């Protein structure tokens, strides 16, 4: 057994900072627990603010200090996202204490190319969640967790690393007693007894220790040293993803919303990667401010559904889609809380990346491009043409909004040689009525010279839009060719006479 322990020393502070806007994150921030400070960020510490100070003392030191409340549920969500990111590498991931995540990685080492690479990849995938992490590896779960918490230097990222039980026991012997969870409340007593290291604790008779400090202390120590079994409950991946983020300040611009949604997207992708799938569709729910609710008819929340033509795990792509959609979305009221939901995953293998551009990679790039265009312009504005077998020119071509990714078609066997053109490229939406002079149609005051025709189109009597027209190719003033028709058997005076219907381009 080989365990990696991740310890999040700044979890409560970082999960609070995620709810802030981009501008506020650089401010000195402190978390309040009752009247005392429980944590302070680096900017605050530089001003002399330390955890344990009273609120008023801290305000005297740094008047611009931003106070937040520690929220256990928020921290649990943030840590769960990290556990999901870890599930990409091993199926047995468990939570430890309030700030730890444990991974059993012995069976995964070979697949990921050794410990160093695995750690690197773990660090890379956890980077999107923006947490300060401390790593340690040990042959026991409890031992790894203790080592990860044991910061000999404050800025250390990779803590002690050992794969050998004897080495772990030697390391633990030198560790301070206060590392053990069960020893926290007895810290002063233990210090008074002169027990500073775990070695000193172990040297005492077990019965006496158990009587004075409880069984838990011994159990914890035994598990860390590998003397007693240490069953762990594995984190299970939920079938559907839902994560929420309560914003610190009201968000009313797309940028502010996007900033908050970024961390939710990172969590979503951690979940999707752990399920070895790609996101096909997700929903962002924006909960509005309560006093805007009800009375004036504003809804309690706005939902924004983003569907992808081709499922993706690319954070930048999802963000750009969301940015375009949010930019277009009118918000009835400022948002206070964001929720991200996802049910639709695609479990197919991801398409391979190509070294050189090929048809397949171009097709994929094109799909991404069209998705971006549709996200900003609206799905109906990106269209494809389709030919329909109908003699009426206005019905012979249909505009279709582009929806799903169309398959790459096989190239046509042979390109037909250019035949004589019989239809103009440009068709007018509604035929333009033309004046008539001496049985000749006029375009812009000049007579049109009819060159070819008539081509009689008489059809559509069965579907309510009958057409009975004689089409002519005519030459306009500058030599350009236009397509005009004369209605036969007109039903009304407005439908009588000559009409311009197209231009040969």
């Amino acid at each position, binding site marked *: 057994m080989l365990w990696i322990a991740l310890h999040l020393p700044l979890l409560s502070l970082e999960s609070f900072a995620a709810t802030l806007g981009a501008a506020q994150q650089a401010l000195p921030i402190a978390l309040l627990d009752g009247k005392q400070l429980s944590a302070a960020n680096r900017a605050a510490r530089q001003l002399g603010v330390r955890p344990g100070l009273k609120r008023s003392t801290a305000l005297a030191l740094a008047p611009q200090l931003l106070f937040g409340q520690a929220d256990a549920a928020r921290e649990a969500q943030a840590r769960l996202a990290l556990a999901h990111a870890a599930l990409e590498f091993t199926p047995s991931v468990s939570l430890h204490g309030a700030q730890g995540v444990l991974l059993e990685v012995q069976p995964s080492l070979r697949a990921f190319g050794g410990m160093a690479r695995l750690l690197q990849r773990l660090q890379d995938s956890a980077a999107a969640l923006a947490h300060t992490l401390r790593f340690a590896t040990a042959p026991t779960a409890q031992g790894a967790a203790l080592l990860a918490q044991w910061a000999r230097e404050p800025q250390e990222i990779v803590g002690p690393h050992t794969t050998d039980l004897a080495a772990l026991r030697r390391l633990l012997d030198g560790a301070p007693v206060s590392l053990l969870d069960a020893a926290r409340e007895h810290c002063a007593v233990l210090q008074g007894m002169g027990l500073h290291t775990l070695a000193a604790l172990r040297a005492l008779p077990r019965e006496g220790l158990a009587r004075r400090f409880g069984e838990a202390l011994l159990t914890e120590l035994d598990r860390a040293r590998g003397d007693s079994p240490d069953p762990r409950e594995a984190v299970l991946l939920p079938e559907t993803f839902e994560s929420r983020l309560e914003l610190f300040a009201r968000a009313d611009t797309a940028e502010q919303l996007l900033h908050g949604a970024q961390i939710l997207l990172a969590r979503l992708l951690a979940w999707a990667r752990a399920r070895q799938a790609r996101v096909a569709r997700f929903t962002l729910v924006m909960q509005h401010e309560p006093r805007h609710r009800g009375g004036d008819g504003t809804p309690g929340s706005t939902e924004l559904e983003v569907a992808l033509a081709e499922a993706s795990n690319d954070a930048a792509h999802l963000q750009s889609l969301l940015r375009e959609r949010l930019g277009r979305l009118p918000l009835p009221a400022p948002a206070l809380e964001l929720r991200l939901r996802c049910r639709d995953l695609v479990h197919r293998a991801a398409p391979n990346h190509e070294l050189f551009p090929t048809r397949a990679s171009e097709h994929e790039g094109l799909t991404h491009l069209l998705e971006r265009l549709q996200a900003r312009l609206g799905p109906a504005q990106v269209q494809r043409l389709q030919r329909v077998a109908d003699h009426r020119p206005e019905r012979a071509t249909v505009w279709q909004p582009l929806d799903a990714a169309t398959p790459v078609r096989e190239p046509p066997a042979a390109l037909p040689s250019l035949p004589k053109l019989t239809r103009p490229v440009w068709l007018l939406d509604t035929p333009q009525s033309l004046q008539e002079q001496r049985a000749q149609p006029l375009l812009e005051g000049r007579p049109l010279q009819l060159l070819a025709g008539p081509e009689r189109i008489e059809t559509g009597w069965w579907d309510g839009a009958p057409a009975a027209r004689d089409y002519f190719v005519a030459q306009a003033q500058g030599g350009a060719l236009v397509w005009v028709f004369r209605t036969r058997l007109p039903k009304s005076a407005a439908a009588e006479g000559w009409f311009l219907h197209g231009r040969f*381009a």
Partner: protein
Amino acid sequence: MPPAVLRPPPVRAPGGGASSLRPAHAAAPCTVAPAPETLHPALWRAHQLVRPRDAALATGFAQLDAELPGGGWPRRVLTELLLPHPGVGEMRLLAPALATLAQAQRSVMLFDPPAALCGWALGQLGVDLQQLVVVHGREGSRGAALRHLLASADLLWALEQALKSGHVGAVLAWLPERLRADALRRLQLAAQAHDGPVFLLRGIDSRLKPSAAPLRLALHAGAPDELWVRLLKRRGPPLAQPLKLVLPPVLAPAQRARALAARVPVAAPPRVAVAQARDA
């Protein structure tokens, strides 16, 4: 800073620039200066056509190929086509190039076409409808009253995205005459990532305004199934004479002869446009 490498001073050919036009063996053997156009592909003389790095896309009209730098529609740069009104034969001019792209299974994107397109006509021109994507600006899909005056920011954005992505085979965009110069310059920069031709189709009145596009053509319908092309700007010497291209015909030969015979009083249309361009 490392010391500069010392080179002998360049030997100047006697008589200045005129001598370099002579064949190399005419000058004294010790003073041969290499012709500038052989030094770097980006150098060319004013009387020569530039040789672009990327192979150009043949236009399908030999007469036009001969006058275009690289022998066809250039890739990675803007090509402006200026027309008096839609429907002078511009699609028939571009169709052979688009058909070539369709054969290579590359997509063609049309931005804000001026009217509805007839799929059958495009099919007859050899354009693959499966590869064709039409993008409209946001305000009203077709026939918006203001569209020919002001380009929508969305459409320019979409155009730039399409060019930058580099996954599109050819881009045709109908842009208004009133277009800020920096917008064109932006597009020209974005086009460098685009491996294919970019055609901007604009009104003929914009020929008087400067443009970042290295190739500008004014199109004019001379007679039925004929297109007069005037090269307003190219990387090479100016071309005074407009080119007369014979387009894929709509009319049968007999009908065309009838049309030509009847249109004597309104002949020689391009002359007025030429005079105006010179004045500018």
